[in-house]
């Protein structure tokens, strides 16, 4: 029987562990929130962890060149392979322990990917992994809203209208990118009911994020956490404001914080306060005007952005999480008698 290493919920900032498993000396930008996510991620998981890192800033920047900031064992994987890396690593450890070829113990497996590698190329592999309930692993998607490592190109996570090198603003086209950001954590939660834990977090809410990672690792099975990481290089703002922009993204209702845990959806942090009416959503212009990637926005662009964010809150079944809803005339579907057709057998 494996001895479980408990990862208790962190009570507050004073309860955050001191141990550093992702240390100074990585070639990330000043103010890189993705690097902070890496630091918090392994702080939360502790040293009995194997990290697989797919190509992107958190690979290239961290290890440029032929070096490492990682104290825990770390291995590179391919851009779209985080799901597979998590699955293969977890399966390998499981069978080796079962066969007695490795000491039986809890080893956390975390595979991370950026928004490019996770929401675009590797989404299929992540989806597959989330259906494998026999394997314990966490896929962490760090979202800086672009293919940042290749010098900022748009991905399916890039917000509406944002400037990237694939979507410059020019005389003929003010906005080249008019796609709305895909709802990845909600999509994965809705589509993979066997995954016990799927969450959205942000390093501006460090304790919330670390606790989400710990829950994912403690519950077991395949899990997923998606973080929004302000990126001073791609978003064009002074690095000192990285934390502030994370707060604004949440306070404007653009990036809801939540978790779906064993089929239950909990909103967390300011998102919960907004949903409960205790906090008012800030207008998105407060967030947009702080970033050079939106400097070209006309009034109508800001209005459209606000309207889409409003929809997440006014029209969605679960605000910020599940986009579709039920016609007013069918609302009684929500009141269906929940008695199962077959009685579950007594223990």
């Amino acid at each position: 029987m494996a001895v479980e290493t408990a990862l208790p919920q962190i009570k507050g900032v004073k309860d955050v562990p001191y141990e550093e498993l992702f240390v100074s000396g990585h070639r990330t930008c000043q103010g890189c929130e993705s690097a902070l996510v890496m630091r918090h991620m392994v702080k939360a998981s502790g040293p009995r962890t194997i990290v697989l890192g797919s190509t992107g800033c958190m690979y290239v920047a961290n290890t440029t060149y032929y070096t490492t900031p990682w104290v825990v064992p770390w291995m590179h994987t391919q851009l779209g392979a985080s799901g597979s890396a998590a699955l293969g690593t977890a399966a390998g450890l499981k069978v080796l322990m079962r066969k007695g070829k490795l000491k039986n113990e809890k080893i956390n497996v975390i595979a991370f990917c950026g928004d490019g590698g996770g929401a675009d190329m590797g989404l299929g592999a992540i989806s597959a992994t989330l259906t494998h309930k026999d394997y314990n692993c966490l896929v962490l998607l760090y979202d800086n809203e672009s293919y940042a490592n290749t010098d900022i190109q748009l991905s399916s996570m890039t917000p509406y209208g944002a400037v990237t090198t694939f979507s410059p603003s020019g005389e003929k086209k003010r906005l080249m990118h008019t796609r709305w950001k895909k709802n990845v954590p909600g999509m994965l939660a809705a589509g993979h009911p066997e995954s016990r834990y799927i969450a959205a977090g942000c390093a501006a809410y460090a304790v919330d994020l670390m606790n989400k990672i710990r829950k994912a690792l403690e519950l077991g099975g395949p899990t997923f956490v998606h973080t929004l990481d302000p990126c001073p290089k791609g978003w064009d703002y002074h690095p000192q404001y990285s934390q502030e922009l994370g707060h604004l993204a949440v306070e404007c209702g653009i990036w809801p914080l939540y978790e779906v845990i064993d089929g239950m959806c909990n909103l967390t942090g300011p998102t919960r306060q907004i949903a409960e009416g205790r906090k008012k959503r800030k207008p998105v212009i407060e967030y947009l005007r702080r970033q050079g990637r939106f400097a070209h926005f006309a009034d109508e662009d800001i209005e459209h952005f606000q309207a889409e964010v409003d929809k997440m809150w006014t029209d969605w079944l679960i605000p910020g999480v599940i986009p579709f809803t039920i016609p007013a005339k069918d609302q009684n579907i929500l009141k269906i008698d929940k008695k199962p057709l077959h009685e579950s057998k007594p223990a």
Partner: protein
Amino acid sequence: MAIETKSRESSEVETEVLATGCEAIAEAIRLADVDVMAAYPIRPYDGVMQAAAKLIANGKMDVEYIVADGEHSQFEIVKHACAVGSRVFVGSSGVGWFYAFEAIAVTAGLRLPVVAICGNRALDDPGAFGTEHNDSLAVRDLGWLLPWAETAQEALDLALMAWRIGEDKRVSLPVAIGLDGAFLTHSQHIVKIPSQAAVNKFLPKFDLGDRLLHPDNPITIAPQVDQDWLMEIRRQNDNAMRQALTVIREAHADYKRIFGRGGDNPFLDEYMTEDAEVVVIGQGTLSLPMKVAIRRLRKEGHKIGLVRLKWFRPFPTEEIVKSLTRFKAVGVIDRDYSFGSPFYGGVLYNEIRSALYSQAKRPVIVGFVAGLGGREIEQNMATEIFEKTEAAAKGGPSAGDVCHWIGVRE
């Protein structure tokens, strides 16, 4: 139906079965105590995955069997399982193999001894299930060991050797066994399945040593590099491939000693070459109709023979030179194509010519492309191949500067 055959030691019983090359390899997976395998359907290799699934469901072996969402994922899954110390198995064919190409490239770069079969299949477009070797050959520069099997028996034998050779610390490179689609993947032959006791003597446990990815061994694997580092890393892989020749020889000798199979030469299988003036050379099952032709044509007085190449990578240059310089002409039969190459020859043709280039005494080397898309090599084609090779022997040094397409309708 299994027939038991006792070998010298009563505890080491070989079992005789009627099995396809794929099914034979499934037995090798069982005997090797593979830990993780990843499956994805594509013909004709996936018979091995179906056979393995049956063994697992019936409790004959304990392997983590993961059905992937695509070949790229499939090969990534086993690569990472290997990195944490699992013995692994994977495979694909044709364009499926190509879908995994990124993973295939990095697996060799990482020096991870993944063992795969490539159920050789023609590449799309158009779709075709028949055998061609271009899928395997496409990775020939990357550091994968590439042997080809002639029979289902050899497929099993090569599989067991693959784990032994690939996992040897001097090599630590992945191995892809070429298995001709249909003829080997789907046809049943009599195969002797060795005993577990015998296999245990041949195949040590997989041990990554200080490269194991585990919290007790803190390492970072594959940090980003630039021009200041990559050449040294490539040189290490070059060195490993050089070492592979030695390791293959050792494994072959051991295999012969324990199982009594493998032929005289680890790299080449020679047939009626002792007094031959002219030979053909190729890899895989094309040797079989060629052997039939040799026996037939010898009755008419032709002094001909066959050299079957067993290992394409590492290329056994020394053995090839030693063998082929004995002959007046060599007809290279490529079950592959290399459009636009020198003399429009196939891959094997140009590699063999390169190996022999500096020899003072060289045979005329003429090229043939045959059997593409799984087209059978019929006896009239075999005859044509020998006739053209014999003609080349009389034709002077440049008589080989040509590639003949055999059995194609004009």
